[in-house]
């Protein structure tokens, strides 16, 4: 359903409107000859984001390139953006799940647990990839995992409830190969299990390094970790 109105087609459609109108609009407010009311809401949204100076798309970003690419949607983004909320149809969910599973790569030598003490700080830290007027300098600090923003882990710090509690994760689930793979996959690309989940894809987006994932997993699974007290 969502797939039948691809954004690309919308973009093409309004690009021709602009050409027909014979003007390029850069000023924040001026609508010039571009008729907002002649566009669908999807087309207008894309226009405001990329063409009408709605966002500072030229800012440089940590991964190289400009902020514009942060606003360009990939296939998952398009499939999982349902206006009004909820999930897309089953066929779309299945496609998202399949693509996510295919995106996962494993470290050479298999999944490892790193240093839980480093993992503790990484699971707490929200540092990394923020831009705007106060951009994160990755030269200063490692990129954090933001896990506590959404999850409760060890109870010495207050975690969020957007995701389920992970308190006692290793203690209750054990450290079998299967559960380690599941946890790794969840961190790397959670859409492989929960298509259109709200949890970010920390591995396939390049947000976290393999070392950071190993440290965070140690924090979840190491018997010494306060998560498993």
């Amino acid at each position, binding site marked *: 359903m969502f797939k039948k109105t691809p954004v690309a087609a919308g973009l093409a459609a309004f690009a021709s409107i602009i050409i027909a109108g014979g003007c390029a609009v850069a000023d*924040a*407010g*001026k*609508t010039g000859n571009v008729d*907002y*009311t002649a*566009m669908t*809401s*999807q087309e*207008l*949204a894309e226009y*405001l*984001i990329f063409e*009408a*100076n*709605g*966002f*500072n*798309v030229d*800012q440089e970003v940590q*991964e190289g390139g400009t*902020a*514009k690419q*942060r*606003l*360009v*949607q990939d296939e*998952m*983004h398009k499939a*999982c*953006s*349902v*206006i*009004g*909320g909820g999930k897309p149809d089953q066929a779309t969910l299945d496609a998202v799940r399949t693509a996510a599973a295919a995106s996962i790569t494993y470290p050479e030598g298999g999944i490892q647990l790193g240093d839980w003490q480093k993992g503790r700080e990484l699971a707490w830290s*929200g540092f990394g*990839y*923020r*831009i*705007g*007027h*106060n951009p994160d300098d990755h030269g200063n600090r490692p990129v954090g995992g*933001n896990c*506590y*923003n*959404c999850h409760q882990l060890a109870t010495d710090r*207050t*975690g*969020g*409830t*957007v995701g389920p509690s992970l308190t006692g994760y290793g203690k209750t689930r054990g450290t079998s190969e299967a559960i380690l793979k599941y946890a790794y996959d969840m961190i790397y690309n959670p859409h492989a299990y929960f298509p259109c989940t*709200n949890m*970010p*894809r920390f591995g396939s*987006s390049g*947000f976290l390094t393999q070392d950071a994932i190993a440290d965070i997993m140690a924090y979840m699974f190491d018997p010494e970790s306060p998560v498993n007290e």
Partner: protein
Amino acid sequence: MFRKALLALPVALALGATANAQKAPEDVLQGLIDSIDSSYLTQSEMNLMMMPDSPALWLIDDGKDLFHEARGPNNVSLETCDFGKGPGVLEGAFVEFPRFFEDTGRVMDFESRLVHCMKTIQGFTDDDPAIRTKHGNAADITKLQTYVASLSNGHAWNPPMDHPMEQAMRDAGEVIFYRRAGTMDFSCSTCHAATGKRIRASVLPNSNVPEEWTKAVSWPAFRVGHDNVRSAQHRVGECYWQMRHAEPVWGGTGMTAIISYWNDRARGQPAILPDMKR
């Protein structure tokens, strides 16, 4: 609470006859708390206690003086500024933003309209501190905005949708609200479409619950954590920063679309102006 009485008085006197409008901001919030079970509305006992002494209340008087004072290169007051209900009509104007203005041919949020009047009526330019300084209690824009907003305290959000441009901007804002993108795959709805969820200790307002959402969109608000009064545009910018998306341009079309949608989601519920936030 002597200060409370002192501060509440000018607000009450300045406001009109609607029942809600004679309440202080904390009374409007209390009414919402009584109407619905919401951990977002009640999350800060401390703020509820501090609201009668909110530093934002002091800005109302400062803003009022600034508004009526002859200023700028043209040495005139802002009394002829049309906020949509006719020149000089301030009561209830704030809750009817964003709105389409014939004279500019575009939908404007309140802050953009204020700046427009300061430029066209008073003759200020972008380089003047009056316009350039956008952040903090000391900024003219903060004071003026807090003053005019206070004259809509207790009024129901009612952004107009009569003009097709108003509807178009609201609908584009809705698309943007649900549009996932960026390094963390977030859209606004990732964090604002469920009730009682938290990011760390912060309870998230649900955009689908107007009684919660009216508090969420009630800006200007004294941000306790920032020790300053902030506007709606600050909050939009802050959430985009957390989302790792591109930064919305101040007064730009992205801001206007988002604010058109978010005020519409609070439609019918009383605004808390000025509010106090965490």
